[in-house]
């Protein structure tokens, strides 16, 4: 399964890219396992996702919990808690 991933704020800075397209390995079925896979994939991912509890996600434009399934997703956004206003 192919997935677009977009990064924001310090997650983007630590990943060094704003977005990428990945081929998801089997077993990466929800946001949590995606974050764990990215953290394990390389040094940038290890730094960006060292604290998964500080990561928030949106799937195809809708904010979702970390247990949200990826089946059918086109784009996942990964980012820190928001600080607007």
């Amino acid at each position, binding site marked *: 399964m192919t997935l677009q991933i977009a990064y924001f704020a310090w997650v983007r800075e630590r990943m060094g890219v704003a977005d990428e397209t990945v081929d998801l390995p089997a077993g990466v079925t929800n946001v949590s396992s995606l974050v764990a896979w990215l953290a394990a994939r390389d040094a940038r991912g290890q730094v960006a996702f060292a604290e998964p509890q500080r990561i928030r996600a949106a799937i195809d434009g809708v904010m979702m919990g970390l247990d949200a399934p990826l089946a059918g997703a086109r784009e996942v*956004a990964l980012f820190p808690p928001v*600080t*607007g206003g």
Partner: protein
Amino acid sequence: MIRVAVQPAAIDIAAELDLHDAGGHGASASFIGRVRGDGDLTELFLDHHPAMTAAGLADLAHAAADRWQLSALTLIHRVGAMVPGETIVFVLTSSPHRAEALAACEFLIDRLKTDVMLWKRETFVDGRVRWVEPREGDGTRADRWNA
């Protein structure tokens, strides 16, 4: 009339008041958030999601319009780089009734801090750069509106 914008351009409060105020509504409440120059801050940068930030603001605006009797609502958030004193966010709500205008304005600014895809990055005069962390109190204030 709901007006929502996410813009890199400076927010022109007087122009927004003029745009908003066509109807001569009974009561208007507003909130202006500005970049503070505390601790030698030289720049505030607002990161955003091109589509989701605008959608998040529009969702909030419609939630407010569903909940209170509003005759007009303006919700403008700036993004990109700005300097101390510049306006980050402008909220303006109008209603025949003052309590409705005041409550909607406070709801919008509280929920903006927790529900919309925006991230603040501070740069200081000594070159330090820091992403702002959410404050405990923000979640508490935003949650008041769930009752």
